[in-house]
Protein backbone atom coordinates (compact mmCIF):
# COMPACT_ATOMS: atom_id res chain seq x y z
CA UNK A 1 0.00 0.00 0.00
CA UNK A 2 1.63 3.24 -1.11
CA UNK A 3 1.29 6.19 1.19
CA UNK A 4 3.17 8.81 -0.76
CA UNK A 5 4.63 8.82 -4.22
CA UNK A 6 6.56 11.37 -6.19
CA UNK A 7 6.90 11.51 -9.97
CA UNK A 8 9.72 13.51 -11.55
CA UNK A 9 9.57 15.92 -8.64
CA UNK A 10 11.38 19.20 -9.12
CA UNK A 11 11.59 21.91 -6.49
CA UNK A 12 13.16 25.31 -6.80
CA UNK A 13 13.18 28.75 -5.27
CA UNK A 14 11.93 31.93 -6.80
CA UNK A 15 14.64 34.51 -7.17
CA UNK A 16 13.11 37.97 -7.56
CA UNK A 17 13.76 39.63 -10.89
CA UNK A 18 16.17 42.49 -11.24
CA UNK A 19 13.61 45.31 -11.53
CA UNK A 20 10.37 45.92 -9.69
CA UNK A 21 8.28 44.53 -12.51
CA UNK A 22 10.49 41.87 -14.06
CA UNK A 23 9.60 38.21 -13.76
CA UNK A 24 11.29 36.12 -11.08
CA UNK A 25 13.45 33.26 -12.26
CA UNK A 26 13.50 29.85 -10.70
CA UNK A 27 16.61 28.39 -9.13
CA UNK A 28 16.22 24.63 -9.16
CA UNK A 29 17.25 22.87 -5.99
CA UNK A 30 15.87 19.37 -6.38
CA UNK A 31 15.78 17.55 -9.71
CA UNK A 32 13.73 14.63 -10.89
CA UNK A 33 13.03 12.67 -7.71
CA UNK A 34 10.94 9.51 -7.86
CA UNK A 35 10.20 7.76 -4.61
CA UNK A 36 7.48 5.83 -2.80
CA UNK A 37 6.76 5.61 0.90
CA UNK A 38 4.93 2.85 2.74
CA UNK A 39 3.43 2.65 6.24
CA UNK A 40 5.78 1.73 9.07
CA UNK A 41 8.84 2.13 6.84
CA UNK A 42 11.61 4.69 7.10
CA UNK A 43 13.33 6.28 4.14
CA UNK A 44 16.66 7.78 5.07
CA UNK A 45 17.83 10.69 2.92
CA UNK A 46 21.53 11.51 3.26
CA UNK A 47 23.70 14.14 1.73
CA UNK A 48 25.87 17.09 2.61
CA UNK A 49 24.88 20.76 2.68
CA UNK A 50 23.42 22.03 -0.57
CA UNK A 51 22.21 18.63 -1.72
CA UNK A 52 18.58 19.67 -1.42
CA UNK A 53 17.47 17.09 1.12
CA UNK A 54 15.73 19.60 3.37
CA UNK A 55 13.99 21.19 0.40
CA UNK A 56 12.86 17.76 -0.76
CA UNK A 57 11.52 16.97 2.69
CA UNK A 58 9.42 20.11 2.74
CA UNK A 59 8.14 19.48 -0.76
CA UNK A 60 6.97 16.01 0.25
CA UNK A 61 4.46 17.52 2.66
CA UNK A 62 3.80 20.51 0.44
CA UNK A 63 5.29 23.12 2.71
CA UNK A 64 6.94 24.17 -0.53
CA UNK A 65 5.12 23.73 -3.81
CA UNK A 66 7.00 21.76 -6.46
CA UNK A 67 8.02 23.61 -9.61
CA UNK A 68 7.47 20.48 -11.73
CA UNK A 69 6.34 16.90 -11.27
CA UNK A 70 3.82 15.51 -8.81
CA UNK A 71 3.46 14.46 -5.21
CA UNK A 72 0.68 11.94 -4.68
CA UNK A 73 -0.78 11.24 -1.26
CA UNK A 74 -3.04 8.20 -1.10
CA UNK A 75 -3.01 8.32 -4.87
CA UNK A 76 -4.26 11.91 -5.08
CA UNK A 77 -2.09 14.66 -6.56
CA UNK A 78 -1.62 17.19 -3.77
CA UNK A 79 -1.59 20.03 -6.26
CA UNK A 80 -5.16 19.14 -7.20
CA UNK A 81 -6.46 19.18 -3.65
CA UNK A 82 -8.71 22.11 -2.76
CA UNK A 83 -7.12 24.30 -0.07
CA UNK A 84 -9.51 23.24 2.67
CA UNK A 85 -8.93 19.54 1.98
CA UNK A 86 -5.19 20.06 1.96
CA UNK A 87 -5.41 21.88 5.25
CA UNK A 88 -7.18 18.98 6.88
CA UNK A 89 -4.88 16.44 5.27
CA UNK A 90 -1.96 18.07 7.01
CA UNK A 91 -2.93 16.17 10.11
CA UNK A 92 -1.55 13.10 8.37
CA UNK A 93 1.64 14.66 7.03
CA UNK A 94 3.81 16.19 9.67
CA UNK A 95 7.35 17.45 10.17
CA UNK A 96 9.92 17.92 12.93
CA UNK A 97 12.81 20.32 12.64
CA UNK A 98 16.53 20.55 13.20
CA UNK A 99 16.50 23.31 15.80
CA UNK A 100 14.00 22.00 18.34
CA UNK A 101 13.73 25.16 20.42
CA UNK A 102 13.29 27.48 17.43
CA UNK A 103 10.44 25.23 16.30
CA UNK A 104 8.35 26.31 19.29
CA UNK A 105 6.68 29.71 19.64
CA UNK A 106 8.53 31.21 22.62
CA UNK A 107 5.44 33.02 23.87
CA UNK A 108 3.13 30.04 24.14
CA UNK A 109 2.84 27.34 26.76
CA UNK A 110 3.68 23.82 25.66
CA UNK A 111 0.05 22.76 26.00
CA UNK A 112 -1.02 25.45 23.61
CA UNK A 113 1.82 24.75 21.17
CA UNK A 114 1.03 21.06 21.04
CA UNK A 115 -2.74 21.40 20.82
CA UNK A 116 -2.95 24.35 18.42
CA UNK A 117 -3.07 22.16 15.30
CA UNK A 118 -6.22 20.53 16.67
CA UNK A 119 -8.07 23.82 16.29
CA UNK A 120 -7.60 23.31 12.57
CA UNK A 121 -7.89 19.52 12.33
CA UNK A 122 -10.66 18.92 14.89
CA UNK A 123 -12.43 22.23 15.44
CA UNK A 124 -14.88 22.60 18.27
CA UNK A 125 -12.89 21.04 21.07
CA UNK A 126 -13.10 22.82 24.41
CA UNK A 127 -10.07 24.28 26.12
CA UNK A 128 -10.09 21.45 28.62
CA UNK A 129 -10.28 18.82 25.90
CA UNK A 130 -7.38 20.44 24.06
CA UNK A 131 -5.23 20.41 27.17
CA UNK A 132 -6.18 16.82 27.78
CA UNK A 133 -5.04 15.83 24.28
CA UNK A 134 -1.81 17.77 24.77
CA UNK A 135 -1.08 15.91 27.98
CA UNK A 136 -1.71 12.59 26.24
CA UNK A 137 0.71 13.56 23.50
CA UNK A 138 3.31 14.59 26.07
CA UNK A 139 3.03 11.22 27.74
CA UNK A 140 3.34 9.50 24.39
CA UNK A 141 6.78 11.08 24.01
CA UNK A 142 7.89 10.33 27.53
CA UNK A 143 7.31 13.73 29.16
CA UNK A 144 5.24 14.12 32.30
CA UNK A 145 1.95 16.02 32.44
CA UNK A 146 3.38 18.96 34.31
CA UNK A 147 5.31 19.99 31.23
CA UNK A 148 2.00 21.26 29.88
CA UNK A 149 2.25 24.67 31.47
CA UNK A 150 5.93 25.25 30.83
CA UNK A 151 7.46 27.54 28.24
CA UNK A 152 10.01 26.66 25.53
CA UNK A 153 12.83 28.59 27.17
CA UNK A 154 12.69 26.20 30.10
CA UNK A 155 13.43 23.14 27.99
CA UNK A 156 16.63 21.37 27.04
CA UNK A 157 17.21 20.50 23.38
CA UNK A 158 16.09 16.92 23.82
CA UNK A 159 12.93 17.90 25.66
CA UNK A 160 12.11 20.51 23.03
CA UNK A 161 12.45 17.92 20.29
CA UNK A 162 10.09 15.61 22.15
CA UNK A 163 7.59 18.46 22.31
CA UNK A 164 7.98 18.90 18.57
CA UNK A 165 7.26 15.22 18.11
CA UNK A 166 4.24 15.48 20.41
CA UNK A 167 2.89 18.33 18.31
CA UNK A 168 3.43 16.31 15.15
CA UNK A 169 1.60 13.36 16.69
CA UNK A 170 -1.46 15.26 17.84
CA UNK A 171 -3.40 14.89 14.60
CA UNK A 172 -2.63 11.17 14.31
CA UNK A 173 -0.23 11.43 11.38
CA UNK A 174 0.67 8.64 9.01
CA UNK A 175 3.94 10.19 7.89
CA UNK A 176 6.46 12.40 9.67
CA UNK A 177 9.30 14.10 7.81
CA UNK A 178 12.26 14.42 10.19
CA UNK A 179 14.61 17.16 9.02
CA UNK A 180 17.94 16.56 10.77
CA UNK A 181 16.04 16.06 14.03
CA UNK A 182 18.99 15.06 16.18
CA UNK A 183 21.92 16.98 14.68
CA UNK A 184 21.69 19.70 17.31
CA UNK A 185 21.46 17.28 20.24
CA UNK A 186 24.04 15.63 22.46
CA UNK A 187 24.99 12.04 21.65
CA UNK A 188 23.18 10.51 24.59
CA UNK A 189 20.04 12.50 23.80
CA UNK A 190 20.24 11.67 20.08
CA UNK A 191 19.94 8.04 21.01
CA UNK A 192 16.87 8.71 23.15
CA UNK A 193 15.08 10.59 20.39
CA UNK A 194 15.97 8.06 17.69
CA UNK A 195 14.70 5.24 19.89
CA UNK A 196 11.50 7.18 20.53
CA UNK A 197 10.87 7.59 16.81
CA UNK A 198 11.45 3.89 16.25
CA UNK A 199 9.11 3.01 19.13
CA UNK A 200 6.41 5.23 17.65
CA UNK A 201 6.88 3.63 14.27
CA UNK A 202 6.32 0.23 15.82
CA UNK A 203 3.34 1.20 17.95
CA UNK A 204 1.48 3.47 15.54
CA UNK A 205 2.69 2.30 12.11
CA UNK A 206 4.21 5.66 11.32
CA UNK A 207 6.12 6.14 8.08
CA UNK A 208 9.22 8.28 8.47
CA UNK A 209 11.42 10.26 6.16
CA UNK A 210 14.65 10.72 8.08
CA UNK A 211 16.85 13.42 6.62
CA UNK A 212 20.38 13.60 7.95
CA UNK A 213 24.02 14.02 7.08
CA UNK A 214 24.88 11.37 9.68
CA UNK A 215 25.24 8.06 7.89
CA UNK A 216 25.50 6.07 11.10
CA UNK A 217 22.19 7.24 12.52
CA UNK A 218 20.48 6.77 9.18
CA UNK A 219 21.71 3.20 9.11
CA UNK A 220 20.12 2.55 12.45
CA UNK A 221 16.67 3.89 11.74
CA UNK A 222 16.11 3.42 7.99
CA UNK A 223 14.74 0.62 5.88
CA UNK A 224 15.76 2.28 2.63
CA UNK A 225 18.43 4.85 1.91
CA UNK A 226 18.58 7.60 -0.69
CA UNK A 227 21.81 9.55 -1.29
CA UNK A 228 21.57 13.03 -2.74
CA UNK A 229 24.18 15.26 -4.26
CA UNK A 230 23.54 18.76 -5.67
CA UNK A 231 19.82 18.16 -5.90
CA UNK A 232 19.97 14.79 -7.60
CA UNK A 233 19.52 11.27 -6.34
CA UNK A 234 22.76 9.39 -6.94
CA UNK A 235 21.88 6.17 -5.15
CA UNK A 236 18.73 4.57 -3.79
CA UNK A 237 18.92 1.17 -2.12
CA UNK A 238 17.60 -0.99 0.73
CA UNK A 239 19.52 -0.31 3.92
CA UNK A 240 21.47 -3.50 4.34
CA UNK A 241 22.52 -3.71 0.71
CA UNK A 242 23.58 -0.09 0.78
CA UNK A 243 25.75 -0.24 3.84
CA UNK A 244 27.27 -3.55 2.91
CA UNK A 245 28.32 -2.20 -0.44
CA UNK A 246 27.59 1.34 -1.63
CA UNK A 247 27.76 1.50 -5.41
CA UNK A 248 28.10 5.18 -6.21
CA UNK A 249 31.56 6.75 -5.77
CA UNK A 250 30.04 9.61 -3.76
CA UNK A 251 28.32 7.20 -1.39
CA UNK A 252 31.59 5.35 -1.02
CA UNK A 253 33.39 8.60 -0.26
CA UNK A 254 30.80 9.46 2.38
CA UNK A 255 31.19 6.11 4.08
CA UNK A 256 34.92 6.45 4.16
CA UNK A 257 34.75 9.97 5.50
CA UNK A 258 32.48 9.27 8.47
CA UNK A 259 34.64 8.85 11.56
CA UNK A 260 33.78 5.79 13.60
CA UNK A 261 34.50 5.42 17.31
CA UNK A 262 37.03 2.68 16.55
CA UNK A 263 40.66 3.83 16.68
CA UNK A 264 42.03 0.69 15.11
CA UNK A 265 39.90 1.15 12.01
CA UNK A 266 40.33 4.93 11.99
CA UNK A 267 44.11 4.83 11.98
CA UNK A 268 43.98 3.42 8.49
CA UNK A 269 41.68 6.13 7.24
CA UNK A 270 43.92 9.09 7.89
CA UNK A 271 45.06 10.66 4.66
CA UNK A 272 42.30 9.11 2.56
CA UNK A 273 39.98 12.05 2.39
CA UNK A 274 38.59 13.09 -0.97
CA UNK A 275 40.06 16.40 -2.10
CA UNK A 276 38.17 19.30 -3.60
CA UNK A 277 34.74 20.72 -2.97
CA UNK A 278 31.43 20.30 -4.68
CA UNK A 279 30.38 23.04 -7.10
CA UNK A 280 27.89 25.58 -5.86
CA UNK A 281 24.17 25.01 -6.21
CA UNK A 282 24.00 28.25 -8.15
CA UNK A 283 26.37 26.92 -10.79
CA UNK A 284 25.70 23.22 -11.29
CA UNK A 285 27.87 21.27 -13.71
CA UNK A 286 26.59 20.03 -17.06
CA UNK A 287 27.54 16.41 -16.59
CA UNK A 288 27.60 14.24 -13.50
CA UNK A 289 27.19 16.26 -10.30
CA UNK A 290 30.10 14.46 -8.68
CA UNK A 291 32.50 14.72 -11.62
CA UNK A 292 34.69 17.40 -10.07
CA UNK A 293 35.66 15.19 -7.12
CA UNK A 294 35.15 11.65 -8.32
CA UNK A 295 38.20 9.41 -8.03
CA UNK A 296 37.18 7.39 -11.10
CA UNK A 297 36.10 10.32 -13.30
CA UNK A 298 36.36 9.99 -17.07
CA UNK A 299 35.78 12.58 -19.85
CA UNK A 300 32.33 11.13 -20.44
CA UNK A 301 31.31 12.13 -16.92
CA UNK A 302 31.77 15.83 -17.58
CA UNK A 303 29.78 15.72 -20.80
CA UNK A 304 26.90 13.39 -20.08
CA UNK A 305 24.89 13.21 -16.87
CA UNK A 306 24.28 9.60 -15.81
CA UNK A 307 20.70 8.48 -15.20
CA UNK A 308 19.63 6.29 -12.29
CA UNK A 309 20.01 2.71 -13.46
CA UNK A 310 18.66 -0.44 -11.88
CA UNK A 311 21.03 -2.91 -10.32
CA UNK A 312 18.73 -5.62 -9.05
CA UNK A 313 16.44 -3.94 -6.54
CA UNK A 314 18.62 -0.86 -6.12
CA UNK A 315 19.55 2.14 -8.23
CA UNK A 316 22.62 4.29 -8.79
CA UNK A 317 23.49 7.07 -11.22
CA UNK A 318 26.97 6.42 -12.52
CA UNK A 319 28.34 5.44 -15.90
CA UNK A 320 30.90 3.09 -14.49
CA UNK A 321 29.30 0.84 -11.94
CA UNK A 322 29.81 -2.87 -12.23
CA UNK A 323 26.62 -4.63 -11.21
Amino acid at each position, binding site marked *: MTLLQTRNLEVGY*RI*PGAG*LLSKPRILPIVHNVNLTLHPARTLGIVGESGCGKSTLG*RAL*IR*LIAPTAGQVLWDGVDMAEMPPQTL*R*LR*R*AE*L*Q*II*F*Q*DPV*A*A*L*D*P*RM*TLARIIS*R*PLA*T*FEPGLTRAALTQRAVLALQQVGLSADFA*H*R*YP*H*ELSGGQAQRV*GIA*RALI*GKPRLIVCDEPVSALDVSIQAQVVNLLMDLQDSVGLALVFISHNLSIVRHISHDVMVMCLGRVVEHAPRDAFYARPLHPYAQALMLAVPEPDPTRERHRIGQSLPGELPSVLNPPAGCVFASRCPIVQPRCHAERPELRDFGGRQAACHFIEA
Partner: protein
Amino acid sequence: MADLSPLALQLRRFRANRLAMVSLGLLTCIIFACFFGPYAFPFSGEDADFDYISARIDLFSPHPFGTDEFGRDLLVRVLEGGQVSLTIGFLGALVAGGIGVLYGAVAGYAGGRADSLMMRAVEILYGFPYVILVILLSLLLGGGNVALFAAIVFTLWLTPAVIVRAQAQSLAKREFIEAARAGGMTPRQIVLEHIVPNCAGVVIVYGSLLVPEVILAESFLSFLGIGIKEPQASWGNLIQAGVSEMETDLRLLLLPGGLLAATLFCLNFIADGLRDAFDPNDR
Protein backbone atom coordinates in the same frame (compact mmCIF):
# COMPACT_ATOMS: atom_id res chain seq x y z
CA MET B 1 12.26 28.81 36.91
CA ALA B 2 8.62 28.25 37.83
CA ASP B 3 6.73 28.65 34.58
CA LEU B 4 6.99 32.34 34.01
CA SER B 5 6.04 33.33 30.54
CA PRO B 6 8.61 35.29 28.59
CA LEU B 7 6.42 38.37 29.09
CA ALA B 8 6.36 37.90 32.85
CA LEU B 9 10.14 37.52 32.92
CA GLN B 10 10.59 40.69 30.92
CA LEU B 11 8.24 42.66 33.16
CA ARG B 12 10.13 41.42 36.16
CA ARG B 13 13.34 42.71 34.63
CA PHE B 14 11.64 46.04 34.09
CA ARG B 15 10.49 46.21 37.68
CA ALA B 16 14.08 45.78 38.82
CA ASN B 17 15.09 48.98 37.05
CA ARG B 18 14.92 51.71 39.72
CA LEU B 19 15.13 54.68 37.43
CA ALA B 20 12.38 53.37 35.21
CA MET B 21 10.13 52.59 38.15
CA VAL B 22 10.65 56.01 39.71
CA SER B 23 9.86 57.60 36.37
CA LEU B 24 6.77 55.47 36.10
CA GLY B 25 5.70 56.63 39.51
CA LEU B 26 6.32 60.27 38.70
CA LEU B 27 4.49 59.98 35.41
CA THR B 28 1.54 58.41 37.17
CA CYS B 29 1.48 61.35 39.55
CA ILE B 30 1.54 63.80 36.68
CA ILE B 31 -1.28 61.97 34.91
CA PHE B 32 -3.30 61.82 38.09
CA ALA B 33 -2.74 65.50 38.73
CA CYS B 34 -3.76 66.49 35.21
CA PHE B 35 -6.96 64.50 35.18
CA PHE B 36 -8.10 64.90 38.77
CA GLY B 37 -6.33 68.04 39.91
CA PRO B 38 -8.68 70.52 38.31
CA TYR B 39 -11.56 69.13 40.40
CA ALA B 40 -9.84 70.53 43.47
CA PHE B 41 -10.58 74.01 42.23
CA PRO B 42 -13.99 75.65 41.96
CA PHE B 43 -13.16 77.17 38.58
CA SER B 44 -11.98 75.85 35.23
CA GLY B 45 -9.07 76.95 33.14
CA GLU B 46 -11.28 79.01 30.89
CA ASP B 47 -13.01 81.01 33.62
CA ALA B 48 -11.73 84.51 33.75
CA ASP B 49 -11.36 85.93 37.22
CA PHE B 50 -11.37 89.65 36.89
CA ASP B 51 -10.17 90.16 40.43
CA TYR B 52 -6.85 88.56 39.67
CA ILE B 53 -5.39 89.62 36.34
CA SER B 54 -1.80 88.55 35.82
CA ALA B 55 -1.50 87.66 39.45
CA ARG B 56 1.79 86.43 40.79
CA ILE B 57 2.50 83.22 42.58
CA ASP B 58 0.83 83.40 45.94
CA LEU B 59 0.28 80.07 47.53
CA PHE B 60 -2.36 81.38 49.87
CA SER B 61 -4.51 83.06 47.28
CA PRO B 62 -7.33 81.30 45.46
CA HIS B 63 -4.89 81.10 42.56
CA PRO B 64 -1.72 79.55 44.03
CA PHE B 65 0.33 79.79 40.88
CA GLY B 66 -1.17 82.99 39.67
CA THR B 67 -3.17 83.84 36.58
CA ASP B 68 -2.53 84.91 33.04
CA GLU B 69 -3.47 88.22 31.45
CA PHE B 70 -7.09 87.09 31.12
CA GLY B 71 -7.40 86.10 34.73
CA ARG B 72 -7.42 82.40 34.03
CA ASP B 73 -5.85 80.27 36.71
CA LEU B 74 -2.49 79.13 35.46
CA LEU B 75 -2.24 75.88 37.34
CA VAL B 76 -5.63 74.64 36.26
CA ARG B 77 -4.95 75.69 32.72
CA VAL B 78 -1.68 73.83 32.70
CA LEU B 79 -3.32 70.72 34.14
CA GLU B 80 -6.16 70.87 31.64
CA GLY B 81 -3.59 71.39 28.94
CA GLY B 82 -1.91 68.27 30.21
CA GLN B 83 -5.12 66.33 29.73
CA VAL B 84 -5.15 67.27 26.07
CA SER B 85 -1.47 66.63 25.47
CA LEU B 86 -1.37 63.34 27.32
CA THR B 87 -4.55 62.03 25.76
CA ILE B 88 -3.37 62.84 22.28
CA GLY B 89 0.00 61.40 23.19
CA PHE B 90 -1.10 58.01 24.49
CA LEU B 91 -4.05 57.59 22.18
CA GLY B 92 -2.06 58.74 19.21
CA ALA B 93 0.78 56.34 20.00
CA LEU B 94 -1.70 53.51 20.44
CA VAL B 95 -3.43 54.14 17.13
CA ALA B 96 -0.24 54.88 15.17
CA GLY B 97 1.41 51.86 16.74
CA GLY B 98 -1.57 49.66 16.03
CA ILE B 99 -1.74 50.63 12.39
CA GLY B 100 2.01 50.33 12.03
CA VAL B 101 2.14 46.89 13.63
CA LEU B 102 -0.53 45.41 11.42
CA TYR B 103 0.85 46.97 8.29
CA GLY B 104 4.40 45.90 9.11
CA ALA B 105 3.44 42.38 10.17
CA VAL B 106 1.51 41.77 6.97
CA ALA B 107 4.25 43.21 4.77
CA GLY B 108 7.01 41.33 6.58
CA TYR B 109 5.25 38.00 6.56
CA ALA B 110 3.95 38.29 3.01
CA GLY B 111 7.28 39.15 1.50
CA GLY B 112 7.79 39.28 -2.23
CA ARG B 113 5.96 41.78 -4.35
CA ALA B 114 3.32 42.70 -1.79
CA ASP B 115 6.03 43.61 0.67
CA SER B 116 7.91 45.64 -1.95
CA LEU B 117 4.81 47.62 -2.85
CA MET B 118 3.84 48.23 0.73
CA MET B 119 7.25 49.43 1.70
CA ARG B 120 7.58 51.64 -1.36
CA ALA B 121 4.38 53.35 -0.22
CA VAL B 122 5.92 53.89 3.20
CA GLU B 123 9.09 55.30 1.71
CA ILE B 124 7.12 57.73 -0.41
CA LEU B 125 5.20 58.94 2.62
CA TYR B 126 8.46 59.33 4.55
CA GLY B 127 9.57 61.75 1.91
CA PHE B 128 6.83 64.26 2.63
CA PRO B 129 7.82 67.20 4.82
CA TYR B 130 6.12 66.44 8.05
CA VAL B 131 4.72 69.85 8.98
CA ILE B 132 3.31 70.50 5.53
CA LEU B 133 1.64 67.11 5.57
CA VAL B 134 0.00 67.88 8.89
CA ILE B 135 -1.19 71.27 7.69
CA LEU B 136 -2.59 69.77 4.49
CA LEU B 137 -4.39 67.01 6.32
CA SER B 138 -5.75 69.39 8.90
CA LEU B 139 -7.16 71.58 6.15
CA LEU B 140 -8.45 68.58 4.24
CA LEU B 141 -10.24 67.20 7.24
CA GLY B 142 -11.66 70.55 8.16
CA GLY B 143 -9.40 71.69 10.95
CA GLY B 144 -10.24 70.92 14.57
CA ASN B 145 -8.77 68.54 17.05
CA VAL B 146 -9.81 65.31 15.39
CA ALA B 147 -8.15 66.37 12.17
CA LEU B 148 -5.03 67.27 14.08
CA PHE B 149 -5.07 63.89 15.77
CA ALA B 150 -5.54 62.07 12.46
CA ALA B 151 -2.78 64.07 10.83
CA ILE B 152 -0.29 63.29 13.58
CA VAL B 153 -1.13 59.59 13.56
CA PHE B 154 -0.91 59.53 9.78
CA THR B 155 2.69 60.66 9.86
CA LEU B 156 3.82 58.65 12.85
CA TRP B 157 2.66 55.13 11.98
CA LEU B 158 5.44 54.80 9.43
CA THR B 159 8.30 54.06 11.78
CA PRO B 160 6.55 51.30 13.76
CA ALA B 161 5.59 49.77 10.41
CA VAL B 162 9.18 49.65 9.25
CA ILE B 163 10.44 48.26 12.52
CA VAL B 164 7.76 45.59 12.81
CA ARG B 165 8.21 44.62 9.18
CA ALA B 166 11.88 43.85 9.82
CA GLN B 167 10.99 41.81 12.87
CA ALA B 168 8.23 39.99 10.99
CA GLN B 169 10.61 39.17 8.15
CA SER B 170 13.06 37.50 10.46
CA LEU B 171 10.24 35.69 12.29
CA ALA B 172 8.77 34.41 9.05
CA LYS B 173 11.89 32.35 8.51
CA ARG B 174 11.82 30.71 11.94
CA GLU B 175 10.92 27.08 12.24
CA PHE B 176 7.90 27.62 14.46
CA ILE B 177 6.26 29.54 11.63
CA GLU B 178 6.95 26.63 9.28
CA ALA B 179 5.47 24.37 11.91
CA ALA B 180 2.37 26.56 12.00
CA ARG B 181 1.98 26.19 8.24
CA ALA B 182 2.47 22.45 8.57
CA GLY B 183 -0.32 22.57 11.12
CA GLY B 184 -2.69 23.99 8.51
CA MET B 185 -2.88 27.56 9.81
CA THR B 186 -3.92 30.22 7.32
CA PRO B 187 -1.65 33.24 6.75
CA ARG B 188 -4.14 35.43 8.60
CA GLN B 189 -4.06 33.14 11.63
CA ILE B 190 -0.27 32.99 11.54
CA VAL B 191 0.09 36.78 11.44
CA LEU B 192 -2.36 37.33 14.28
CA GLU B 193 -1.42 34.41 16.52
CA HIS B 194 2.31 34.09 15.98
CA ILE B 195 3.84 37.10 14.25
CA VAL B 196 2.16 39.97 16.07
CA PRO B 197 2.62 38.57 19.61
CA ASN B 198 6.30 37.93 18.91
CA CYS B 199 6.70 41.48 17.77
CA ALA B 200 5.44 42.61 21.17
CA GLY B 201 8.91 43.23 22.50
CA VAL B 202 9.94 45.36 19.58
CA VAL B 203 6.64 47.19 19.56
CA ILE B 204 6.70 47.97 23.26
CA VAL B 205 10.20 49.32 23.09
CA TYR B 206 9.67 51.57 20.11
CA GLY B 207 6.08 52.31 20.98
CA SER B 208 7.16 53.72 24.30
CA LEU B 209 9.25 56.22 22.37
CA LEU B 210 6.25 57.01 20.23
CA VAL B 211 4.34 58.59 23.11
CA PRO B 212 6.83 61.40 23.74
CA GLU B 213 7.10 61.82 19.99
CA VAL B 214 3.37 62.40 19.65
CA ILE B 215 3.26 64.74 22.63
CA LEU B 216 6.15 66.69 21.24
CA ALA B 217 4.56 66.76 17.79
CA GLU B 218 1.32 68.15 19.17
CA SER B 219 3.18 70.64 21.35
CA PHE B 220 5.25 71.80 18.44
CA LEU B 221 2.26 72.22 16.17
CA SER B 222 0.28 74.02 18.84
CA PHE B 223 3.29 76.18 19.47
CA LEU B 224 3.32 77.07 15.78
CA GLY B 225 -0.35 77.89 16.00
CA ILE B 226 -1.64 75.13 13.79
CA GLY B 227 -2.42 72.67 16.56
CA ILE B 228 -4.74 73.05 19.48
CA LYS B 229 -6.31 76.47 19.29
CA GLU B 230 -7.23 78.88 22.01
CA PRO B 231 -9.21 79.03 24.25
CA GLN B 232 -8.54 75.31 24.70
CA ALA B 233 -5.25 74.75 26.42
CA SER B 234 -2.49 72.37 25.55
CA TRP B 235 1.08 72.46 26.74
CA GLY B 236 2.16 73.57 23.31
CA ASN B 237 0.03 76.66 23.04
CA LEU B 238 0.61 77.47 26.69
CA ILE B 239 4.31 77.45 26.04
CA GLN B 240 3.78 79.66 23.04
CA ALA B 241 1.88 82.14 25.18
CA GLY B 242 4.58 81.88 27.74
CA VAL B 243 7.32 82.60 25.26
CA SER B 244 5.72 85.86 24.23
CA GLU B 245 5.60 86.94 27.90
CA MET B 246 9.07 85.61 28.62
CA GLU B 247 10.63 88.96 29.33
CA THR B 248 8.15 90.00 31.93
CA ASP B 249 6.66 86.88 33.42
CA LEU B 250 8.78 83.75 33.25
CA ARG B 251 6.24 81.80 35.23
CA LEU B 252 3.89 81.53 32.26
CA LEU B 253 6.60 79.63 30.40
CA LEU B 254 8.12 77.65 33.22
CA LEU B 255 5.04 75.89 34.48
CA PRO B 256 3.85 74.30 31.25
CA GLY B 257 7.41 73.94 29.99
CA GLY B 258 8.57 72.30 33.16
CA LEU B 259 5.71 69.86 33.23
CA LEU B 260 6.22 68.97 29.58
CA ALA B 261 9.93 68.43 30.15
CA ALA B 262 9.29 66.31 33.22
CA THR B 263 6.79 64.17 31.32
CA LEU B 264 9.17 63.67 28.43
CA PHE B 265 12.03 62.75 30.75
CA CYS B 266 9.89 60.18 32.51
CA LEU B 267 8.71 58.67 29.25
CA ASN B 268 12.25 58.41 27.97
CA PHE B 269 13.52 56.70 31.09
CA ILE B 270 10.60 54.31 30.98
CA ALA B 271 11.36 53.60 27.33
CA ASP B 272 14.99 52.94 28.23
CA GLY B 273 13.90 50.53 30.93
CA LEU B 274 11.56 48.76 28.57
CA ARG B 275 14.30 48.50 25.99
CA ASP B 276 16.62 46.86 28.50
CA ALA B 277 13.92 44.53 29.75
CA PHE B 278 12.72 43.43 26.33
CA ASP B 279 16.14 43.20 24.72
CA PRO B 280 15.71 40.53 22.05
CA ASN B 281 19.34 39.55 22.44
CA ASP B 282 18.50 37.99 25.73
CA ARG B 283 16.41 35.24 24.19
